[in-house]
């Protein structure tokens, strides 16, 4: 095990997969000469050259489509969005081309492509730069959605995403890049897509979440421990495929659940999870499943408003108390 930052873990995954398969290339804004806006691709240009680590113009729709075409023809592109906020320009090619290609062609054209970059809010970046975008992608059949929250998950899941034959929206946390954690050194350390991870154990309540929010959930779990409440914190890691077995297992154990996500509530990931839980584990529930999300508004700039808008550990504790009828 080595201790790596989330950023370094992603970098290792990219490097190892590019070494393993010459068809893998990385394209995006500032990924080569600038080492990536968040330095995730540091040193890759030197290692692999400018044919495989490619600085694109600011043409999100164009280079995303280029990636999809290259994947149709057999390459395995990794397309970096500087942040997923800018991927709205390209979402047509992700949804209309990448996610449907295999189906429309009756399996003739697999789509081994990864769209990756940070999603979610950082600090005071305001409305157009602070959006958790996972729901847009998980809504579309054909697209897989991965949201790693730790360095180990970042590495293992990115390797899996690159080896996967379906399009994967791989959504990182802008505020996680400096996070340190233990990461297995093994070149074949691959975490299969669709396997959730129990990040904290307890019998009283299930806090289910994904991505960067696992850290807020763990913080809430710590606070709850002080009150003698023991929470399961289940990190979905991938939103689609979804580890329903793990969700049902924790709900059947605790009989109470809260879903925490960074994005908006309306038709959010939590809405889907809550619906699945009531469909498949209704009799196991002792309380309605609650959701904690960002306030249902565009992200404001002012620091005090931004704090109010973001989901916090206190919001989670409050929701947990409600499902425990405390």
């Amino acid at each position, binding site marked *: 095990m080595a201790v790596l930052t989330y950023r370094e873990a992603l970098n290792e995954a990219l490097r190892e997969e590019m070494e393993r398969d010459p068809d893998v290339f990385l394209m995006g804004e500032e990924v080569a000469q600038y080492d990536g806006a968040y330095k995730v691709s540091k040193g890759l240009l030197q290692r692999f050259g400018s044919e495989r680590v490619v600085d694109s113009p600011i043409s999100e729709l164009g280079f995303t489509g280029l990636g999809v075409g290259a994947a149709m023809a057999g390459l395995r592109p990794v397309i970096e969005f500087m942040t997923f906020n800018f991927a709205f320009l390209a979402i047509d090619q992700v949804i209309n081309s990448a996610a449907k290609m295999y189906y429309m062609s009756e399996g003739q054209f697999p789509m081994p492509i990864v769209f990756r970059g940070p999603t979610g809010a950082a600090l005071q*970046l305001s409305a157009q730069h602070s959006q958790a975008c996972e729901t847009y992608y998980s809504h579309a059949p054909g697209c897989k959605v991965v949201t790693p929250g730790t360095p180990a998950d970042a590495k293992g899941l990115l390797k899996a995403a690159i080896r996967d034959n379906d399009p994967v929206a791989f959504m990182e946390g802008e505020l996680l890049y400096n996070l340190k954690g233990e990461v297995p050194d093994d070149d074949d350390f691959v975490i299969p897509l669709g396997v959730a991870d129990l990040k904290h154990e307890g019998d009283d309540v299930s806090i289910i979440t994904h991505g960067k929010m696992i850290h807020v959930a763990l913080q809430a779990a710590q606070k709850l421990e002080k009150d003698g409440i023991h929470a399961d914190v289940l990190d979905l890691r991938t939103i689609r495929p979804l580890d329903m077995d793990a969700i049902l297992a924790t709900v059947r154990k605790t009989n109470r659940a809260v879903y925490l996500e960074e994005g908006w509530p309306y038709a959010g990931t939590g809405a889907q999870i809550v619906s699945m839980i009531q469909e498949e584990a209704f009799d196991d529930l002792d309380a309605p499943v609650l959701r904690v999300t960002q306030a249902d*508004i565009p992200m404001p700039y002012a620091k005090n408003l931004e704090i109010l*808008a973001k989901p916090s550990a206190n919001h989670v504790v409050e929701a947990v108390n409600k499902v425990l009828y405390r």
Partner: protein
Amino acid sequence: MAETKTKARRNPKKPDPLVQFGISEELALNLMRDMLVYRRFEEKAEEAYAIGKIGGFCHLHIGQEGAAAGSIKPLRDDDYVMSAYREHTQALAKGVTPNAVMAELFGRATGSSGGKGGSMHIFDAKTRFMGGHGIVGGQVPLATGIGWKIKYRGEDSVVIVYMGDAAVNQGGFHEALNMAAIWQLPVIYVVENNAYGMGTAFSRVSTTDMVDKSRAHGIPGHSVNGQDVLETYAFFRDLAAEVRGGAGPQFVDLRTYRFRGHSMSDPVSGTYRSVEEVERAKEQLDPIAMLRDTLMDAGAIDQAALEEMDQDARQIAQDATDFADASPLPGPEALYANVWAEINKHGRLFFDGRGAEGGTP
């Protein structure tokens, strides 16, 4: 035309740009005053960012003041200006007060967007400053829509929309120019060509010259030295009059240079441009120094008067900072205000469960 000079020209043999561009001494002095305010304002913003009074992304216009003053000052009040995220000084040029802009950067209730927008989203309907847009190229079709409105209503105002050099590689840019050409909309598309989009030199992402970017759409392309505020002013004065007169959309490659990093979180120089290149630009291409030389050559200003003018500019920037600092934070009631213009009593609009109908949390 240039007014009669009271003081002697320093070098009578050198051609006088004031005469060449038909700009009065008084106007030139005003442009100097404006650019000094922009420079000192941005320096104050830089200081405030360093001590955490301003957060998020903050893109300074230092080095590009001539482009702002020269292209916006010739406009009328009822003309529209729209920009990207490097827009503080353009907002000032259009008439948004330094206090309102600085308070917005500070995230205060007195800011031009009540503290909700921040550095990248300065909006001011009154002065027709139309934002402040954070998605590269996103504003270009929007400005085209403003041109559409002007034509639709038979008005004679014009729109200037600014974008960085990197924005011309967005599809929306080309779609917008094509439509503006089809419908002959009164839009002036201005690329503030500072040669780099973040760390990418324009020459690495385009095989054609900037000035040629509009040609395929049948829109005239012009190239202007944005560091020379007099040249820029004269050019936009004439161009705005032509567009007002029905000349149709125009495209301007306004050549400039950024003296700071891309944003406050980026280095000034690095692998993409050398320290020497930046230093040389600061020496040779500073729009304020260039106008100072012209004014001194013309005998229109002396060192003492210039220093006094600069002192006034510093005071304006300081006052704006003090105003922002003393201004209240937006209250929690602002959180859910203005998501929608109308709240329908009969249906639920907010779903976060934090308060009744999205009231205060």
